[in-house]
């Protein structure tokens, strides 16, 4: 039987898989990092169309590595079930918010799950300010990254903002 090379799968087939069968941005990113031809296929797709398909599956907080300034986003209808074995603490994290919370981070380790490339646990990075226990709607969720920048949002807010501590 002929040797099979998955990197040689025709572009149109790869694009078909990407456009019609991927469910979220995480799968897209993973696939696009496999090899040149898969990457070409991924970026040959109409990305704005893909984003629409995923719209209810974007994470509500997403950090890219390095410059967090403009890259902290959240999405109101985010949902992506979490299933890494060695991942971030999604179960715990879900407790934080009403529904579907989870965090996705891209770091130097090329995995999505290691927060900012060091040994910090997400658990330690994110905490709920508890001064205002009576009024949980105004609770701040705070995310501290390497103690150099903090982001916070009120429970019902959607966007994380840089926060003075």
């Amino acid at each position: 039987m002929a040797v099979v090379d998955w990197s040689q799968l025709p572009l149109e087939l790869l694009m078909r898989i990407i456009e019609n069968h991927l469910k979220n941005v995480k799968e897209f990113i993973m696939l696009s990092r496999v090899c040149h031809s898969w990457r070409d296929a991924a970026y040959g797709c109409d990305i704005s169309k893909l984003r629409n398909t995923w719209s209810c599956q974007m994470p509500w907080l997403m950090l890219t590595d390095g410059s967090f300034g403009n890259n902290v986003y959240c999405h109101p209808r985010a949902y992506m079930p979490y299933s890494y074995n060695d991942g971030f603490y999604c179960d715990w994290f879900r407790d934080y918010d009403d529904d579907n919370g989870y965090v996705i981070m891209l770091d130097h380790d090329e995995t999505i799950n290691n927060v900012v490339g060091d040994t910090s646990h997400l658990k330690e990075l994110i905490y709920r300010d508890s001064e205002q226990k009576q009024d949980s709607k105004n609770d701040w969720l705070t995310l501290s990254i390497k103690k150099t920048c903090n982001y916070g949002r009120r429970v019902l807010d959607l966007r994380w903002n840089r926060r003075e501590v």
Partner: protein
Amino acid sequence: MASSSSSSLSRVVVKSSDNNLFVVNKKVASQSQLLKQCIDNMEEKGTNDVILIPLSNVTSNILTLVLEYCEKHADFADDDNNNQELKQWDHEFLKKFDYATLNSLTMAADYMVTKSLLNLCCQFIADSIKDLTVQQIRQIFDIKNDFTPQEEADIKNENAWAFR
């Protein structure tokens, strides 16, 4: 043989790239748009001979699998698409194969325009990527990392598009 203008062909012969012949009943063959097109064309011309369709891109072991799929689906062709038994069968069908076979099968489904099989394969591939890291994906599909370290570094800084 009496000739009638419609459905004069009940069987076709399909030839694999390694020159094996498969006799396929028309209903089964029609699951593949490529074969169906050939049959329709021949019928339009009013041919009554058994026709031979050579498939230069499909080896006989893969063709056997495609035809197995087509046969099963031809049995259910008159049912609605949501037949539970068929879905279950589809699911079990692909699970039997290694990734090399899956690759050839996907290409064959594409070439023979067997849309439901192609969808099935694509979904299966997408499902196997789910929850894996890049390394793991390379491993199961046996793909070499052909990025240079510099390219890898660049790629990691490149994902901001998702949020614009």
